[in-house]
């Protein structure tokens, strides 16, 4: 499951940042992608919510800072279904 979540998440990153060369990795943070600022972060959240049909709580938004945390969160949510 982790692989498939990661694959979908990577597709979102590539779409949102309009960059086909992005390869995501667990420790990846905003520092690793130049355009990943607070505005893009919100766009990312919106796109993930839509794709995976989840709704981040404010607390999740505050806590999730890297790609690995996104994946962990999504696995937890999808697994609970």
């Amino acid at each position, binding site marked *: 499951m982790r692989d498939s979540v990661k694959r979908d998440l990577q597709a979102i990153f590539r*779409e*949102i*940042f*309009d960059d086909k060369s992005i390869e995501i990795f667990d420790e990846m943070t905003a520092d690793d992608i130049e355009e990943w600022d607070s*505005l893009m972060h*919100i*766009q990312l959240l*919106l*796109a993930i*919510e*839509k794709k995976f049909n989840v709704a981040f*709580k*404010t607390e999740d*938004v505050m806590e999730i800072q890297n790609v690995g945390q996104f994946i962990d969160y999504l696995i937890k949510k999808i697994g609970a279904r």
Partner: protein
Amino acid sequence: MNINEANERLAYFENLFDKRDLSSKSDVSELLSLYKKFSKIEEVYISKHRGTLVNKKIAILASYSIQHFQYVFKLFLFNKAIQPELYEGSFNNTEYEILNPSSGLYRFEPDIIFILTDHRDIKNYPPIFTSKDDIDIWVGKRISEWNQLWDKLKTSRVSTIFQALYTIPAETPLGNLESNYIFSQTSCLKLLNYNLIVNKPQHINLIDMDHHSAIYGKDRWFDDKDYFISKQGFSFNAIPHLASVFSSLVASSTGRVNKCLVLDLDNTLWGGVIGDDGVDGINIDPNNPIGEAYLSFQKYIKKLKERGVMLAVCSKNNEDMAKIPFLKHEQMILKLNDICCFVANWDDKVNNIRSIAKQLNIGLDSLVFFDDNPAERELVKRYLPEVTVVPVDEEPAHYVKTLDRGAYFDWIQLTKEDIERTETYVANYQREEIRREHTDYDSFLKSLEMEIMIDELSEQGLSRVVQLINKTNQFNLRTKRYSENDIQKMMNDSSNFILLFGELKDKFSNFGIITCIILRKVNDMAFIDTWVLSCRAFNKGVEYAMFNKVVDKVKTWNKISHIVGEFIPTEKNKVITEFLPTLEFKRLNDIPLSLNNIGGGGIFYSIEMENIEYKKHFISNMIKNDDDWGYHYAGQRKA
């Protein structure tokens, strides 16, 4: 991105914007990512479409973050052929931006300002049990604060200002009592909105955000999580809705307005097919749910007509047959004299719509097409992309809603002339009749018994003249758009500007104000800065009457040796390409030096004062007294 990808992307957006199809996209996430993609080819797109795009500098002042909104807004503007340059006011600093003459706002020199308000801006709501008198004081204080901002904006050079009314939040700590006590937050905001409407000056255009939020659904409009995270005053999901509304307003303010609703008949205005079912078989029965749906649609359309939207019929029918319900069916709300142009034949609708535009003398891009038949809609969409095609719902009971929500007729103002215009078109039929009786055009013109009143512009005619300048596309020498503020400044500068307007009537109808000329003194020249004439008054000699008056007025300026005109060609003003030469103006090979900064890159013409001869026409001078002005501007028509 390699060159192929870039070209592919450019083609994608060209196709998207060509079809004006963006409003069908309502997912904010998709739109944000679209903008990201567009931003990389934005410059290429602009340079390729320079000729058709209108450049607008738009400032948005808000007490909350609007960064995501801006991106989507931009896309919607491009979708309407507007090339925006946006300025985001410094966060929560609307007053500073407006009051401080050296603020970023004024340095940006916007054409259009949006002022967005939020109920959270107000920090001192009246406490519980505040008396009515004290509430009035509280409201009065806020209005006087706004007055100060409005006054300041009036002296600025901004053409168009939009201000959002307050959106009343969904939460009601007093429950149902909110609307039973004047001191509740809900009541205070309603009173404030009401007083803003009552007190707003003409140069402020209010936007009813509470209405938009209600249509959208307040629970979806406000999302506290979104607000806490992003500090945007409305939810992310509401962005596309608002961007669509705002972009329509911008389009209207640049003169891109829809003027005419083109209607199908069978299963659009009535249930059934007149040719098959006969006048007794069609359904507009008030006692039948389906008949009621069609009647309520007719009722709504009648209201559009009363506010000045022209109605045209485009139907596949025999003309006589198509007219029967209008003449014989007593339930019909729409009558033949509500219709400016009635086209019923077996030709295809593409040709017929072209002919309607031609007969009404308006652009295809000012038509809205409403037809229940999806095949007809597709055809019109494909062959007449300029025409707005309404995506009609299969359910006739939803026709009103579909037409209403499309906001196709979101004009910036209403004028008496718009409303009388529909009458004028009907009178045109009568005029056409006498024209057939008269063998030569001069005797036809004489028989119309036309009268004109030409005068210098004053406050009375101002709003109509501003509208004329901003809406006229065909007889418009330079297509310069001016705001009310701009015009008022010229009116106050009579040593450099003469502003003339003309009001016309004939024995059939009162056309109202149909023409305007702005003359600008530049050294020894009188430069025709603006000359517009409404298409309804073409070919009547109005332009000659105006020109004669121009000559008289120019003589009151000292030492003017010649009058100079410039023709700036556009897609739409081809009809007057040879106009200045018909007034004996001679083409200039070079731009007069002193007009270097004023000219608009067009073709210059000049005529020596001493060579001018008065032009012949058949319009007598209208005698007016003060009472006559009254009916015209106050809206009360005399018998």
